[in-house]
């Protein structure tokens, strides 16, 4: 075989390869193919993870059924009537709002402050960030038990410490007192979830051009003025999103409250999700529990719509 023949063969192979590649790209560029390999899997996941359970819950809410029995009896909207007529439901709704509102405020203030601190360059910055991240990485149940341990009135470090420095005279049963249980649960859950706010805010802080601050410094602005006129306006968008997300998530929060107090003492921390759980697993009324969940779902949607309508956060979020 001559060298010319070899060149021809190579050239031919390259040409065929090029042609095959073009065909693949052309195939992939077709709209229905792109939709099939990008959107369809995500949509399928969304349908099975979100829509099917939502549909199942709404369907279950229209039936009377025990949690332990697969036999369902159609009851229409009567479960909704019973739930809406139950004072315990409205009490739990108030507790949910209290818990969600309190948690968002604490997490926002603490998360924002922490982000401003760790945004600065200092020695051990990475270590501080890692430590701040730790509670978020610990499973909620474990963090809850740690909270119970350090908050215990007999051997917990918090009461012991406060008594030693003279802040309190006798140990406080943080999770067992009607007065303290809700604040204690809010603070414990914020201990875990504050870092989410920190991460979001920190990401935004690091994208603010340094030149803004340099220009402000040249113009004679002090630290507070720089925060008010540069940092805060740039953070508005992320704050709106964080408030919405954390508000919804804390409103729906179940696990940490369940571990810390189980909804007690008495009804002090019986939030709506805990109320729903009790209806499902104690009263064994799956239909009613589903109706409760469906009502909470509708309330959250209405809350989100109102939030967007009134505060228009989308105007604050910069799309770049």
């Amino acid at each position, binding site marked *: 075989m001559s060298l010319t023949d070899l060149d021809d063969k190579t050239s031919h192979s390259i040409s065929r390869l090029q042609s095959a590649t073009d065909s693949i790209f052309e195939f992939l560029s077709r709209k229905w193919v792109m939709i099939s390999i990008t959107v369809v899997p995500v949509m399928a996941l969304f349908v099975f993870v979100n829509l099917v359970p939502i549909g199942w819950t709404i369907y279950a809410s229209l039936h009377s059924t025990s949690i332990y029995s697969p036999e369902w009896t159609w009851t229409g909207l009567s479960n909704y009537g019973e739930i809406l007529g139950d004072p315990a439901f409205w009490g739990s709704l108030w507790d949910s709002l209290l818990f969600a509102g309190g948690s968002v405020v604490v997490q926002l203030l603490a998360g924002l402050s922490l982000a401003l601190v760790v945004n600065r360059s200092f020695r051990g910055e990475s270590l501080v960030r890692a430590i701040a991240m730790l509670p978020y990485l610990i499973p909620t149940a474990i963090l809850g038990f740690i909270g119970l341990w350090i908050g215990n009135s007999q051997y917990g470090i918090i009461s012991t410490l406060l008594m030693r420095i003279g802040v309190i005279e006798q140990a406080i049963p943080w999770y*067992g007192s009607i007065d303290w249980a809700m604040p204690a649960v809010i603070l414990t859950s914020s201990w875990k979830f504050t870092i989410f706010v920190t991460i979001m805010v920190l990401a935004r802080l690091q994208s603010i051009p340094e030149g803004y601050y340099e220009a402000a410094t040249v113009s004679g602005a002090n630290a507070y003025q720089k925060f008010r006129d540069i940092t805060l306006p740039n953070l508005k968008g992320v704050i709106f999103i964080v408030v919405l997300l954390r508000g919804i998530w804390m409103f729906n929060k179940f696990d940490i409250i369940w571990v810390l107090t189980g909804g007690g003492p008495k009804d002090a921390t019986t939030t709506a999700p805990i109320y729903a759980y009790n209806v499902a697993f*104690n009263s064994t*009324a799956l239909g009613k529990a589903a109706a409760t969940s469906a009502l909470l779902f509708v309330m959250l949607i209405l809350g989100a719509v109102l939030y967007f309508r009134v505060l228009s956060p989308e105007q604050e979020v910069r799309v770049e």
Partner: protein
Amino acid sequence: MPNSRRNSGCGCNSVNRRRVLAGLGAAGFAGIAGCSGGDPTATDSSGGPTVTSEEGEWPDLSGQEVHFMVDETSDPWRNFFSTVASDFKAATGAEVRMEYQATGGDAEDRLAQLLQAGDPPEILLSSVSQSAQLAAQGVAAPVNDAFNAVVDRYGEPRQQMQWEGDQYMMPFGSNIGMFFYRTDVYDEPPSTWETLLSEGRRIEEEDNGMHGTSLFRGTGFCTELQLMSWAYSNEAWVCENNGGTDVNVIIDEGSNRDRWVEVLGYMQDLHTISGGNEDINCNGSTAIANENAAHGWFVGSRQKNQAIVQEKDFAENVALIQQPGPGQEAALTNGLTDGLITYKGADNQAAQTYMEFFAQPKYFTQIMSLTPLHIIPPFEGIFDIPEVEEQLANLPDAWTDQDIQVMRDATEDYITMAGETDPTNPFGGAIYGSRILSDVLYDATIEGQDPGSVIDEYAPQIQEAVDEVKESL
């Protein structure tokens, strides 16, 4: 103590035969299972094929699976259940799929999933209260064959779960409400309500950092179990059952209300010698070991075991005592009974074979060693099995013969809320789950409200909790 209400769910149809067999004595226990030997191709009483292995003669269940769900996560218990599963497979050819759920409700979540999906587990380790509710709901399946076979071996168990003539639970073990006190702190045993209070007050006045007792007042199951121990010691009942599911709450009725008022009044007295304890529930099982109190209660032996495990120098001074009563010793107390149950739609034959297999002396002996004297075997005769006697003899020195005897005696004087009524109360779990009894105690002690008013306020709420579950039947 006379107790006309006590119900062990007696399966009276075959009592005579069983008692005769039980009367054959302990000598038979050691050789009950796994020693019958015989032809590998033999058939069992139902005519099915059997296999003979080192474990004895058992039905051939090759190709079948037993799904066993248990809310237990500790390694020793997992190892124990795994061992039984392996042995069962070797004996019958059936696979045992163990599913471990965390304690505190996860098993109930999972059970609900499986039942709603029409795929119930073959076996669940469950409380007598839960099994009663599931039987009443028509979800659980009877286990008469396995139950009768095991009763033929050991005699009647201390507690049973019988519903409309059928047995629904193979007893596994019991935790009995026991009291523990420091003999080096108490001058005389707190064996009655009165001596506990007077001694407790003396200890409280000494102000040595230890409370006279540890009365749980946090919201939760253990707080309610403890309250019910005190209630039963005064013959104060929660419910009456007029048949089937016709269960009524009677804490606010007649002389029973008076006894409840006495109990809550006594709880108010104990509150004064018990520290705050508003956040103490099941975590109060370490009250004595942590030196918070010189006297404490728990279902099982944890108060003492904790002192031993923590190598406290006073561990040998922690003595057991039965439930004190008003003016009397060794009163009736509260307890828990767990057992194996199965479900309609599951492979009940395989499930019952497993239950029968499980009820071998060697496994009860192992249970005793996992947590000494904490889970008490459901059959009195098991204490006479040589291996169990040896196990008890090898307990840490802090466990005295007197302690062991007190625990054995206590097994005769406890009931569960399900067994409080005759017939069985299927709503005991619903009452505990509602946490209303925690609220009763909270208001009477922490809030210091009048006991009579507390009773009258909460009685309708407890009835409501019962009625809600009744609606789902």
